[in-house]
């Protein structure tokens, strides 16, 4: 049962107060995109064992979506951050590297 801190209201929320939203930083492909791009956007997920960027909504709280970087194997949380960013921020990458020196954003 995870605890994630909502970056908007500062509450360390219990997983039961949150709603999961799958992988973060997906680029939307709309009309005019190729079948491959659209398939990748809508269906294909790397499902990593290790560092994962993901979406959560503080559903039983301030209602805001936020992003988390978390290790799917150990459940270690490297940080949570704003959903209004198209890619992992420099801060979150530094926080991950501090714990996983060998990790890199591919």
């Amino acid at each position, binding site marked *: 049962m995870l605890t994630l801190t909502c970056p*908007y*209201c*500062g509450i360390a929320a219990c997983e*039961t*107060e949150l709603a999961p939203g799958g992988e973060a930083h997906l680029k939307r492909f709309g009309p005019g995109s190729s079948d491959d791009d659209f398939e990748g956007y809508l269906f294909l997920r790397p499902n990593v064992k290790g560092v994962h960027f993901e979406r959560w909504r503080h*559903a*039983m*709280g*301030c209602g*805001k979506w936020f992003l988390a970087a978390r290790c799917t194997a150990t459940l270690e949380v490297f940080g949570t951050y704003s959903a209004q960013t198209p890619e992992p921020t420099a801060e979150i990458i530094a926080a991950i590297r501090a714990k996983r020196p060998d990790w890199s954003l591919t």
Partner: protein
Amino acid sequence: MSELALSALAGAKATGLVTIEDMGLCGMVTLRADLAASAGAVEQVTGAAMPGPRAMTTGQGVQVAWMSPDELLILCDHAGADAMVAALSQALAGQHHLAVNVSDARAVLRVTGGAGALRDTLAKITPADLAALPVQEMRRTRLQQVAGAIWFVTDTEARVICFRSVARYVFDLLAMSARDGGAVGYH
């Protein structure tokens, strides 16, 4: 027709380790806006300062609660809620915002009792850390299976707020949790 208006719980009351009472009709206005840019307008209309995250501030017969980075809940007199919406809309004219009367969408309960019993009772229905919740800070959380919010007015008096349709559920949850045999003695 406000003389015929009914709150969801119509004055329900239960007593045990703590006392739980329907607060009746309460005025509530949701304001969504850029809070930093709206502080002046909000203070002008409500007399209350713009609250920081999770905090509540008080004006003339009005309380302003921080709900999220772009949302406030303004608690006021039930009959005055429409006027509050109008006043906010006027004060914020030209600025992107949404002010709407939500008085009837919610129910408000008053829970009173000893400081320990009060927190023990609430701790049976919410995963929030009540020992760490200061007076006049709103904690939006889960009340077992529904969303709601809790704040302490004083050390011995709390408010529980939930959506109108589940008011009976939340009242029954609290009444069950407050039954005399269930004293915990934790807080």
